């Protein structure tokens, strides 16, 4: 009989012995090694670019030594001065900053009113066809964000910029510059793209509000209006603030729309300013701008997380009482439905039809000038850079193949990385490594894509050590695209692995399966579904991606999105519209197919 009273724990064996033992364990369980590899990889792909862009912002670049009298590579405040305090800083920074703010505030207000109203309509009222509306009103988010800006130009463009004039101008109605270009159209077109975002976030929150909370207030004698003001709105605040901050964050990093609609009147925002600086090869200035965008992006997401944490305290959202009891609109039912249809028409039908018709008419939207030349003609007179219909020649097909290849590969890498990160985190053999992976894989979420692309350019544009210069290679595109989508896939990978737990793998281990066998026969087969969603969601979002790739593509690595923007630059409106239509079609089909097949909602892909 062993009777043991409290004993002191025995002394640990010497460090060397313990190390030898740990090595033995690691030899048989590669989790720790895998974790270490992932740490190095993420440090290199996520952290290093940020460090590089930061260092580029405060060190003298080649070619600028004549201005400063310093040696290239030396520490310098020259770029900071140039961006913030010099004579051209208004042009470089302050004006774009102001414009960005105007666009952000305007877009957010627009999206909030439209999205919030529609959210209420489809989730809390008995509007006819609400289910259909709920699905249809999300469609704008499936289209590339600058689809709307091209459609806008097709309608309102005047002769100020080159290329075909818009519909109104063609019919003799002069469109002033403020209507054709600049802040107003940017706000409207971006708002049309982002309101589904608000609709999804606010709609979810509205659906989750416990009807009993409203009932209680009404039983206590509060009139309907008071209930809304005192109960519903405060409960909606977290979702609202989240929607606001996320829309602001997206607007900050968006490139296509301000480029298309802002350039003709020199209306610059931070993202287009950054692009311009890179194009002008003023790396130092670009680095400062990228850093500013990164900082604003990080601040926005942190504020959002902070608010969410604080507000979670009073969000009572009880699952059971959340009854679906829509407000009766009575005689307003039909008008409300008409309003919903109108929003759908304005945000989907009008832009898409405008684009479609513009590609098949010589005079904008005039069906008497119907032609299929822009699609299939072998020779297009006057179009020097692209002298044939989009479906002819090799440009479109090459770009499509590049898109498919590059985005597909990135999505695959992303999904596998996500699952592996989840695996290391859940195995928990190395808590510190797991913590690092969790946080660093989330980091790109904080950073607007265009700034991250600029940062990657800082690191990879020149040869560093054994790594050759990667600018212009598909490899760089794949890397950056995979990394920017990593937050979503690593989150879903971690969630999937946590849900699975360690036990199925341990059971296989006990049954005698080696690590490879466990991966091949147990982990990956079980996570097949998660893997597929992990590939498809980044793939769809990558197909539409412009902000990230615009700076990284060269003529050799044209993607569908950059091809379309290139055609805009040439002034080949119809051809650009045709390409963007194809992207929209592709992305819409894939999204709805995936939604139908995997029953995953688009909302989960938003990361909101």
């Amino acid at each position, binding site marked *: *009989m*062993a*009777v*043991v*009273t*409290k*004993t002191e*724990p*025995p*002394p*640990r*064996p010497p460090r060397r*012995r*313990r190390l*030898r*033992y740990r*090595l*033995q*364990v690691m030899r*048989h*369980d590669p989790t720790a090694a895998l974790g270490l590899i992932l740490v190095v990889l993420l440090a290199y792909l996520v952290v290093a670019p940020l460090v590089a862009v930061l260092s580029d912002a405060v060190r003298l670049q080649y070619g600028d030594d004549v201005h400063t009298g310093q040696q290239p590579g030396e520490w310098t405040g020259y770029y900071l001065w140039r961006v913030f305090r010099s004579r051209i800083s208004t042009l470089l920074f302050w004006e774009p900053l102001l414009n960005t703010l105007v666009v952000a505030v305007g877009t957010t207000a627009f999206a909030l009113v439209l999205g919030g109203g529609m959210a209420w309509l489809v989730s809390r009222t008995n509007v006819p066809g609400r289910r259909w509306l709920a699905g249809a009103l999300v469609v704008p988010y499936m289209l590339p964000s600058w689809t709307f800006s091209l459609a806008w130009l097709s309608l309102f463009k005047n002769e100020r910029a080159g290329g075909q004039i818009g519909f109104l101008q063609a019919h003799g109605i002069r469109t002033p510059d403020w209507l054709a270009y600049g802040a107003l159209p940017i706000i409207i077109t971006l708002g049309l793209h982002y309101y589904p975002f608000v609709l999804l976030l606010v709609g979810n929150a509205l659906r989750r509000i416990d009807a009993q909370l409203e009932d209680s207030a009404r039983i206590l004698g509060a009139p309907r209006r008071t209930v809304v003001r005192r109960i519903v709105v405060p409960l909606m605040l977290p979702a609202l603030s989240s929607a606001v901050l996320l829309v602001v964050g997206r607007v900050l990093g968006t490139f296509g729309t301000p480029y298309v609609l802002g350039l003709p009147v020199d209306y610059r925002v931070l993202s287009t300013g950054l692009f311009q600086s890179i194009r002008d090869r003023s790396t130092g200035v670009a680095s400062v701008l990228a850093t500013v965008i990164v900082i604003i992006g990080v601040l926005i997401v942190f504020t959002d997380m902070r608010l969410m944490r604080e507000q979670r305290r009073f969000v009572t959202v009880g699952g059971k009482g959340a009854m679906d009891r829509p407000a009766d609109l009575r005689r307003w039912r039909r008008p409300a439905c008409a309003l919903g249809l109108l929003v759908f028409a304005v945000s989907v039908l009008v832009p898409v039809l405008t684009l479609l018709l513009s590609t098949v008419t010589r005079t904008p939207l005039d069906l008497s000038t119907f032609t299929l030349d822009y699609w299939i003609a072998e020779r297009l007179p006057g179009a020097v850079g692209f002298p044939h219909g989009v479906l002819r020649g090799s440009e479109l097909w090459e770009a499509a193949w590049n898109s498919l290849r590059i985005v597909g590969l990135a999505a695959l890498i992303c999904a596998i990385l996500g699952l592996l990160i989840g695996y290391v985190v859940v195995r928990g053999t190395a*808590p510190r490594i797991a913590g690092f992976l969790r946080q660093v894989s989330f980091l790109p979420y904080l950073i607007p894509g265009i700034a991250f692309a600029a940062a990657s350019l800082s690191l990879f544009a020149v040869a560093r050590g054994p790594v050759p210069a990667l600018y212009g290679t598909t490899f760089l595109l794949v890397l950056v695209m995979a990394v920017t989508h990593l937050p979503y896939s690593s989150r879903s990978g971690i969630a999937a692995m946590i849900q699975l*737990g360690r*036990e*199925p793998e*341990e*059971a*296989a*281990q*006990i*049954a*005698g*399966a*080696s690590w490879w*066998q466990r991966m091949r*026969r*147990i982990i990956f*087969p*079980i996570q*097949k579904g998660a893997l597929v969603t992990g590939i498809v969601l980044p793939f769809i979002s990558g197909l539409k991606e412009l902000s990230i790739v615009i700076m990284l593509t060269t003529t050799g690595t044209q993607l569908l999105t950059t091809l379309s923007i290139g055609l805009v630059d040439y002034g080949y409106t119809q051809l650009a519209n045709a390409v963007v239509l194809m992207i929209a079609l592709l992305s819409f089909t894939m999204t709805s197919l995936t939604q139908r097949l995997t029953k995953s909602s688009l909302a989960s892909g938003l990361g909101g």
Partner: protein
Amino acid sequence: MPNITLSGVSKSYGGGDHAVRNLDLVVPDGAFMCLLGPSGCGKTTTLRMIAGLEQPTTGTIAVGGRTLDSVEQGIYVPPEKRAMGLVFQNYALWPHLSVRENVEFGLRMRKVPGPERRSRAAEALKMVHVETAMDRYPSQLSGGQQQRVALARMLAVNPAVLLLDEPLSNLDARLRLEMRAELKRIHEESGATIVFVTHDQLEALTMATDVAVMSDGELQQLAAPMEMYARPANRFVAEFVGSPPMAIVDAGPAPAGLAASLLRFVRSRDTRAVPAAVGIRPEALRLGAPPGSAWSEEALVEAVLPAGSSWTVRLRVLDTELYALSYTPVRAAPGDVITCWAEQLHLFDADGSRISSWDRSEVSA
């Protein structure tokens, strides 16, 4: 069949608290050893260390003379090479494989040829009575069936050491009873060494040949089940094993009331005895006229709680509340004053270790 030896095994997470502290334990060849203790006592960690799923911070683990873990010598054999069987608390069946594939998996890993694999899997499933569910998937099975499949999956590879981590805790009462008998039968038929983790003392007492009680990462007592019940090594074991638990009366520096009465009785039997605390099991506290040699006292009946086959009576004896468990009908009503007497008393010293017990039939040390 091998014995399992743990010597000086400790496990701490991140250098902080010890989950297991300096554990010396020998599981004899062919034993059915129960690791018993409250949650967080380190019993599951111990089991997982034997399986190789976790690694000790110090110490040595050997099975059948073969060292599997030795921090000091830098030896580590991974779980997949230990050839043991482990049933998880949540069964951990692979959801993407059918019942048959689940059971065949271990054989496949051991490169057993197809026909033999099928027949051995069928045999294992037959042994646990789920042969009809062969082609279904785990999600289509009831909890009891899943549990049996998990057992069959382990039995199919015919391991010499079986490890069970609270495998019955997710089953309902009837199934649990059935599976207890089943496990006992499997133990007898296979002759394997079994280590079974549970927090349910009834499971430990009914199935095990040896029970190791753990608390706070330390081994409290290692004994045969009835021995443990009759002679708990310390206050922890005394209070943990037995239901309702043993009442322990502390003497304190100036014993008064019930404590004084008990001490007077103990001294009258053995003048050298200086217990710091005296324990009475509810089933050893009897009601009615005492036999001459036993401790007895007047008691006020506070409540009578019938439970079908037994009656629990709450008594106030001097200043203290005591419970008596009776297997014969209790005729007293609340408010009655009756006599109670003790069939057996357990004596503990100041650090809680058992000194001896007083028994009506014999006085043992």
